[in-house]
């Protein structure tokens, strides 16, 4: 049977949308508007649309959806999760009703039942070419693919594996569905190797369904954090005298993290997590283990069965809330400065003493910040002699500058080295 003749497939085609996003980005210390095109798939009768986190983000100021009928309607962001590159938006139902527009929604298939070699179709808007269908097969149904800065500097892929397909996926396909011949959504197309031949990746529908349900309810996914950086045990079992298919190697322990306080050390092998046996032999086994930890309630006690040399230990740690390396951002236009909160993850990554201070992410030429000599990457630690802990704190100083412009002394650190600057009107 051809996909084109299947009723399911036709229904799916009616559920795929083009998404045009206008968003504010912070560049060179000023807020600017940019636009982008992506794809999405309607997943419910109340007009919820699943797409990628890198298509529709909290920076979006205007999201416009083009339905299969080629009618355009506005949409708003419901939830966002960069870790799985998923976002949920919802069309303006009131507008739809007024204009008497109709749509259908797609049905999910079972991504866990996919086998390599199975035919799949990608539907989306590559390079703005609306409603493009491409065909391929599942090349691999369990591909690990993590990128610590994959989504505009945000982490992606630590907690899930991906479907790999040779169905052509190009820029603009992002957020569109990967479907089986009967039109059931088995994945959300997310990324491809640029310049490679047909190496595309999609988030499996099992994960997309689960995450989208949480996003609809809460707007974001809360995950737990322990501070273990796992490594692959493959070929090291003999060295650690382990039965094969047992345990997860601790490659690194984040300083100051729950497991660091619990006494976990690099080179330890985690055999059990709350009594459950763990197997981290191959790279694709690690995201599910990471997800097991992430799924624990924040603040819950965790028992780790650990092998250290010939010793067996039981360590207990209490999970913390997972944070991204990217903190909230803010633009201070009169200073020509854009800044970002220093998150705990960023502080650890950069070996900062703590997570206080505000990171400079853009300076605009000719404005007070740029003229003072402060540069991208500097961390503002004091203004007018007072420590800066949060964005709000900096905002206060900025406001008093705006109200009554006068030279202000700014202390910033670069590689922990302290320097002074003056922002003056």
């Amino acid at each position, binding site marked *: 049977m051809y996909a084109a003749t299947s009723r399911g497939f036709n229904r799916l085609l009616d559920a795929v949308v083009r998404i045009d996003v206008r968003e504010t980005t912070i560049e060179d210390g000023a807020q600017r508007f940019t636009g982008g095109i992506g794809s999405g798939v309607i997943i419910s009768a109340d007009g919820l649309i699943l797409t990628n986190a890198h298509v529709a983000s909290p920076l979006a100021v205007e999201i416009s959806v083009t339905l299969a009928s080629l009618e355009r309607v506005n949409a708003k962001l419901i939830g966002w999760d960069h870790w799985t590159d998923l976002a949920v938006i919802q069309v303006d139902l009131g507008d739809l009703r007024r204009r008497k527009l109709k749509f259908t929604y797609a049905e999910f298939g079972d991504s866990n039942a996919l086998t390599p070699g199975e035919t799949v179709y990608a539907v989306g808007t590559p390079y703005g070419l609306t409603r493009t269908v491409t065909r391929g097969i599942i090349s691999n149904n369990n591909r690990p693919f993590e990128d610590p800065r994959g989504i505009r500097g945000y982490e992606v892929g630590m907690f899930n594996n991906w479907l790999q397909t040779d169905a052509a996926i190009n820029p603009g396909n992002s957020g569109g569905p990967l479907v089986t011949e009967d039109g059931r959504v088995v994945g959300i197309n997310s990324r491809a190797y640029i310049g490679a031949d047909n190496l595309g990746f999609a988030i499996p529908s099992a994960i997309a369904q689960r995450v989208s349900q949480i996003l609809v309810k809460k707007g974001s996914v809360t995950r737990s954090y322990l501070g273990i950086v796992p490594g692959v045990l493959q070929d090291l079992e003999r060295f650690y005298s382990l039965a094969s298919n047992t345990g997860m190697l601790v490659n690194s*322990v984040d300083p100051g993290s729950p497991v660091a306080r619990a006494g976990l050390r690099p080179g330890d092998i985690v055999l059990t997590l709350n009594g459950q046996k763990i197997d981290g032999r191959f790279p694709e086994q690690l995201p599910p283990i990471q997800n097991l930890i992430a799924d624990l309630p924040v603040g819950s006690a965790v028992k780790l069965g650990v092998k250290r040399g010939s010793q067996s230990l039981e360590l207990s740690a209490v999970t913390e809330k997972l944070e991204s390396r990217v903190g909230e951002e803010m633009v201070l236009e009169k200073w020509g400065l854009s800044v970002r909160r220093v998150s705990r993850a960023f502080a650890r990554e950069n070996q900062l003493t703590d997570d206080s201070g505000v990171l400079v992410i853009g300076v605009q030429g000719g404005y007070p910040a740029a003229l003072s000599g402060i540069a991208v990457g500097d961390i503002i630690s004091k203004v007018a002699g007072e420590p800066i802990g949060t964005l709000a704190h900096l905002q206060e100083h900025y406001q008093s500058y705006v109200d009554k412009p006068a030279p202000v002394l700014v202390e910033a650190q670069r590689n922990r080295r302290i320097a002074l600057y003056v922002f003056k009107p």
Partner: protein
Amino acid sequence: MKFSRIILIGVALLISSRAADLPALIQERLASVVAVEFVIQTEVERHPVTAAGTVIDDQGTIILPGSVIPPTIAPGQLSGFKVYHPGSSEEHEAAYLGQDALTGWHFVRAEERMRKELVPIAKFAGTGTAGTRMGDELWGIGLRGKQEDFVPYVLSSRVAMIARFPNETAVLAQDVAGPGLPVFTPAGQFAGLALNSFGQNFLLFSQNHNGTPILLVNAEESSVVLLAAEALPQLGRIPQAVTGRPMAWIGVYGLQPVDPEVAKLLKLEKQSGVVISDIMAGSPAAQAGLQDRDIVLAIDGQPLPRFKPDQVVVTYAGQEIVRRHPGDVIALSVLRGTERHEIKVTLGDEPKMIREASRRYFEKLGLTVREFLKYDGLMNRSSPEDTGGVVVHFLKPNSPAASAGLQPNDWLREIDGVPVKDYAEAVEKLAAIEADAARREFVLLASRNGETQVLRIKLN
């Protein structure tokens, strides 16, 4: 007219005396100029180096610019020092004496039989006190490469500007000498030593570049001259040891200039300052109670001058430390918040440097490890008590160690799952692994930017 004839005769005499004397002056001054050749031996390569040097005394001592030897190269890696007269292929043996911390110069001494043909540069130092001024004409010497027997040539130009960087330096309109070689007045008086040239901005136009900005540095000739008044007093700084020790040390690693705007806001009139941070635990500065954010305003009562660009004051402060000796007490006037403090620091001796660190190359494994230094602790942001392990100093390309993903400067904390106490223990373990022909693999715990990694190194 009698009057004009006198003037004409005067001018004619001046011109003829210059024209007649310059070749002779050059010939005479070539006795202060040599070419020096040596070899830098690394784990897998021998790099031949040639440099130009200036003779500083009648013991055959020669100075070379600091940049001719990378700072991590140990004196033991240097060999085969040879000295040549300009335009001659005759080799003379020489010995390496070490590097001076203040000037950065490397010192080399030529063998006895060559010494009588060498003339110390100070012999050409003038007696006048006028010094070099803007607009003065100067000339200097350059040397061609070894293939041309280091044949000398002459350059001349005019002083375009004089500035303090922080040492009094003349920048000429055009290149005037090879880096490391002397520059003279038209009368033949020593005017200064050519430093490495500054970069010059150009725009590149070609098929693929439409006005791309590029920075060009002339490696063979320079227009930057350290003036004689600054150079002459330093010529005697021959290192007492090949390591360059003793070297005064304060232990402050973050030094940032106070720019004029900041100075104005802090009400520091007409002077500069240096904000200090990154103070090494246990260092002289830490022991004396210096703190992050202290602003140094004066050293031994001397206010820090204002230099242009601002960054020069940092070099100035650094020089004020290294020109002193370990054990000297230095008084720093610092601004802490709104209060002024006078802090006396007893300078220590520079901790072991990378070029002095014990190191060993394991050829089969494909890496050199060296001992963990205080400075590594600073770079790794580790606690001062955490001094175990060794540092990867070199990786042989495509070797087992390199293929496993190690990188230079990785800090090796464990070998085969056991923490490494110190350098001796690491060397013992690695040597045992290298000697064991039956060994198929070993495991390292390496730390990089505060994150660790378990690495399996496959041997074949």
